[in-house]
């Protein structure tokens, strides 16, 4: 039996994660003890406060990172810093959307259509558990991007996933669809986690180590059993590809995006993607880099299929949330090309793209939540016709974000696509480049179709209307528009900052 060394925790570096976790715990206490009336406002204030403090704590670590902590289970480096910052910024603007509490179920545990639910609705009960859940998920995401051993990575994956499963089932309207989404997400997520864990076991078997650096060293050494490595990489990839909804592990995302409350979808679509791609970047750039010739062809194939599939299927969607879901699948394909590039510019481009895409996504879903009729949100695209005539500002804002998704110049999307495809080109991957540009063209078709629908079709008189956005939603939309525009017009400072900062400590 060896001597026990107490771990060095490096609290300053862990502070952002710890702050968010503490905020979540306080949120649970508020849920338990605070009077129902004051809960909504205090939870919102607490969450925003927590996130801002976490962001401040993160910024304080600026320049002092490049260290490992907690027995090398987490690594703080430039890339982790940037990814955590992206997650926190996106979380701050996304959490404001939760303030529209009438979007959430009054009694989430009650069976849809039951008396219990009706009573709760009649009593106008507003639930607020969603705030601490979100904070727990954010903590998981923050950890996910800096985890540098497989166990910590798995724990972080579960910490971020479990709250999301619950949050997906909280929609007030269309309760059945929402609960179905939650259940599907949970079942498939568990399935994918099993693959992930299976892969982890094989990687440990291969390298006799659970840390990324240990795996990297084993690959460089090259004496171990390659089959173990191969199974390990494949199955760990499955778990991660599931989270980023790459084809063929994507099927949950349209159903879940559609069924979840839109505010949750916004958060999930944006922040989860950053976290999952962050983890993926780290594991592929740090642990698997030495084995690139083995995994690159398969990952390239997945990226290609994902881009094309997402873009093609999005065309035939009639529901705006499903369309955005497929668009996010296509974007996952574009982002994968940055992972595959496996060079510095690929890393920079992916981080920029993640941030730009995440921010625009939050804004887009925020706008979706504004289009309502008497029975809740209207997500049927046909009923969005003529929106430009009725609410020009909302329509212009939505169009702008769609153009950003499509990658039209003067939006952040253009800069993101440009840099990520040039990174792919730099790594010699012309297949990605060509397919990427072609599927961007296909994707532009369905984005612009929505723009045409909003501005050049006559409105249908069917009670669809735009609710006046609350101040919080308004902030979310404006911030996301502003960032999308600024990153499109003056990307240089941010790009420079990323390229100076982003690196992985191996």
């Amino acid at each position, binding site marked *: 039996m060896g001597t026990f060394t107490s771990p060095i925790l490096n609290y300053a570096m862990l502070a952002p994660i710890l702050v968010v976790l503490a905020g979540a715990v306080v949120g649970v206490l508020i849920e338990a003890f605070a009077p129902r009336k004051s809960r909504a406002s205090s939870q919102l204030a607490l969450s925003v406060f927590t996130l801002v403090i976490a962001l401040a704590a993160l910024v304080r670590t600026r320049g002092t990172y490049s260290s490992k902590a907690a027995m090398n289970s987490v690594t703080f480096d430039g890339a982790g810093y940037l990814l955590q910052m992206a997650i926190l910024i996106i979380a701050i603007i996304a959490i404001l959307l939760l303030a529209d509490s009438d979007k959430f179920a009054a009694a989430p545990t009650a069976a849809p259509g039951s008396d219990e639910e009706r009573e709760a609705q009649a009593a106008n009960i507003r639930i607020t558990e969603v705030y601490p859940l979100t904070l727990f998920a954010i903590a998981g995401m923050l950890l996910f991007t800096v985890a540098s051993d497989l166990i910590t990575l798995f724990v972080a994956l579960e910490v971020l996933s479990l709250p999301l499963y619950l949050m997906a089932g909280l929609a007030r309207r269309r309760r059945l669809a929402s609960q179905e989404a939650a*259940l*599907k997400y949970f*079942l*498939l997520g568990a*399935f*994918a986690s099993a*693959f992930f864990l299976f892969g982890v076991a094989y990687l440990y078997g291969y390298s006799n180590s659970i840390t990324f650096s240990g795996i990297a060293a084993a690959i460089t050494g090259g004496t171990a059993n*390659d089959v173990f490595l*191969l*199974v390990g*990489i*494949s*199955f760990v*990839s*499955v778990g991660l590809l*599931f989270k980023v909804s790459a*084809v*063929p*592990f994507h*099927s*949950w995302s*349209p*159903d879940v995006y559609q069924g979840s409350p839109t505010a949750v979808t916004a958060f999930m679509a944006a922040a989860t993607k950053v976290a999952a791609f962050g983890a993926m970047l780290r594991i592929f750039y740090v642990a698997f880099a030495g084995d690139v*010739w*083995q*995994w690159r*062809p*398969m990952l390239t*194939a*997945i990226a290609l299929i994902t881009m094309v*599939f997402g873009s*093609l*299927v*999005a*065309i*035939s*969607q009639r529901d705006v949330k499903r369309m955005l879901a497929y668009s996010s699948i296509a974007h996952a394909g574009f982002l994968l090309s940055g992972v595959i590039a496996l060079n510095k510019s690929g890393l920079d481009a992916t981080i920029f793209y993640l941030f730009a895409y995440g921010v625009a996504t939050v804004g887009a879903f925020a706008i979706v939540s504004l289009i309502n009729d008497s029975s809740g949100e209207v997500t049927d695209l046909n009923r969005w016709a003529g929106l430009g005539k009725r609410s020009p500002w909302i329509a212009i804002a939505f169009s702008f974000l769609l153009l950003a998704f499509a990658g039209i110049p003067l939006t952040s999307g253009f800069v993101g696509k440009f840099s990520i495809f040039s990174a792919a080109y730099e790594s010699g991957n012309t297949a990605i480049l060509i397919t990427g540009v072609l599927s961007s063209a*296909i994707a532009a*078709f369905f984005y612009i179709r929505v723009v045409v629908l909003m501005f050049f079709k006559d409105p249908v008189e069917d009670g669809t209307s735009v609710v006046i956005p609350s101040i919080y939603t308004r902030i979310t939309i404006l911030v996301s528009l502003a960032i999308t525009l600024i990153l499109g017009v*003056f990307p*240089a400072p941010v790009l420079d900052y990323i390229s100076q900062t982003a690196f992985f400590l191996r």
Partner: protein
Amino acid sequence: MVTSSSLVYLIGLPLFGAVFLLLIGRKADKWGHLLATAMSAGSFVLGLLHFFAMTNRSTEDRAITQTLFTWIEVGTFKVDAALLLDQLSICFVLLISGVGTLIHIYSISYMSHDENRRRFFAYLNLFIAAMLLLVLGNSYLNLYVGWEGVGLASYLLIGFWNKKPAYATASKKAFVMNRIGDMGLSFAIMIAFATMGTVSFEGVKESVDRVGTPALTAMGIMLLIAAAGKSAQFPLQAWLGDAMAGPTPVSALIHAATMVTAGVYLIVRSNFVFDAAPTAQLLVVIVGAITLIFGAIIGMAKDDIKKALAASTMSQIGYMIVGAGLGPAGYAFAIMHLLAHGFFKAGMFLGAGSVMHGMNDEVNMRKYGGLRKAMPITFITFGLGYLAIIGVPPFAGFYSKDEIIATAFNSGGAQGIILGSITLLGAVITAFYMTRVMVLTFTSKARWDAGVHPHESPALMWLPMAILAIGSVTAGYLFTQGEALVHWLSPLFAKKEEYEELLPHSVVSILAISAVIIGVSIALAKYQFRPVAAIAPTDVSFATRLARNDLGQDVVNEAIFMRPGQGLTQGLVVMDEKVIDGAVRGIGAMAVGSGATLRRTQSGYVRSYAALILVGALVLLAGIWVVTQ
């Protein structure tokens, strides 16, 4: 003391005025014009401060730059949004903001009955800002932004009264023809980028030696096309006459004093390119010489006072282009003529506006006559401009035109003799048609329509005219006093080569003055001492008819560009509908179809999703296996 960090306010003030007035809307109707005028005046004052600061610096330190931000950075290629104020740009800054401010003041009264006066002033400010950016940009790319900006402002202002379809068409015509020139500029920038890897003036100047003559010639020709488009030079001259549809202050500011001279600025600014590309330089001279005569001939036949003045502008810019094409010997004189022209032509346009104001917006000079008594101030100010443009000593035009004629004669060999003769002939015709304008408007017998009661314009209108007239009288003397302007500008250009004078300067002056006398005498004989028909006679010679129709420029354009263009577009439409649309529809249908097919994989059942994940994982594994083996 002003520093380079305040350069941005030169542009910033009028830009702010434009944006503010456009955004704030009708609320500003009462005071918007005052704000706009103040902004323009602010730019002028700042420009003056910079001018004095510049004169206090030694010759090497006169140019200052202000870097605003890095605009484009791709690899080693970097373009800063930076402003450069040197001896050349300060001349333009003062001209643009000075004449601009006077015209703002004039417009307060001229546009006082227009309900959209605020919008008009916003556009004027926009123009000033864009034009200042054009002359202050330190690279071709920054210049290009201003170049497009003035094009936009010009388009908006020509079509300001767009309720009349003819005016809207005129603005569209100007826009389209300018586009050809703009294309030339963008090609020039591309050539600079491709062969030199830089687009800043500084960088191009330094790279000229490294680059072969063919590339420089190509770049020079493209720059010439750009200049021809913006400055209404042959063969892109047709839009200027129609541009007179805009309100008269606009014609004075944009289509006489400033924007149309941007082409001259471009060529003079690119002197290092043209000095190294003799073919392009020769083309510049040819274009200038053709336009000089072309415009003058059109000017003889026009009865519309503004169109006559527009033709004259075209011809005078021809002089400047000839000067600019004569290389280091002529650059400074081109600029001198440009500045002098800015004064007297703006003044004459304002005079024309004043006449129209008093004559119920009549523009036909055959309906004028005898306005000398009715509008004495307009007569005097217009008259001083007239003396300046035809080149009577000691007015501005005499000095500047004289120098260009002398330089043309001395450019050597047959070229010198031909060019000199053309510029002299131009002087004769100029004297003729300007005297015709003068006589028809002011000194012949009145031929007014019934119910017209001409009256002098208010002080707000005649004051700017008077100031410009003073400029027309004194500018030439000031510029040539001790060769002030030539010395001021000379550090920017290559050294003049020593040349043998074909004709001594005094002989040239005598020739020029004789030319003026001949032109004036013919015009007096024809119009002053004979009655003028109030309706233009129709039984005129073919030559006159041709000149009245702008020497067939529209016919030529229609035959060469418009009809083949229409044919081409019709062909393309068919091609587009049958071939491309067919293909696109096919691909679109394929995409939609495959999308719909793929969508079926989305059954909604968790079990099939899970199966898909399982299959995917196995395929992934198998794939990596295959790659590994």
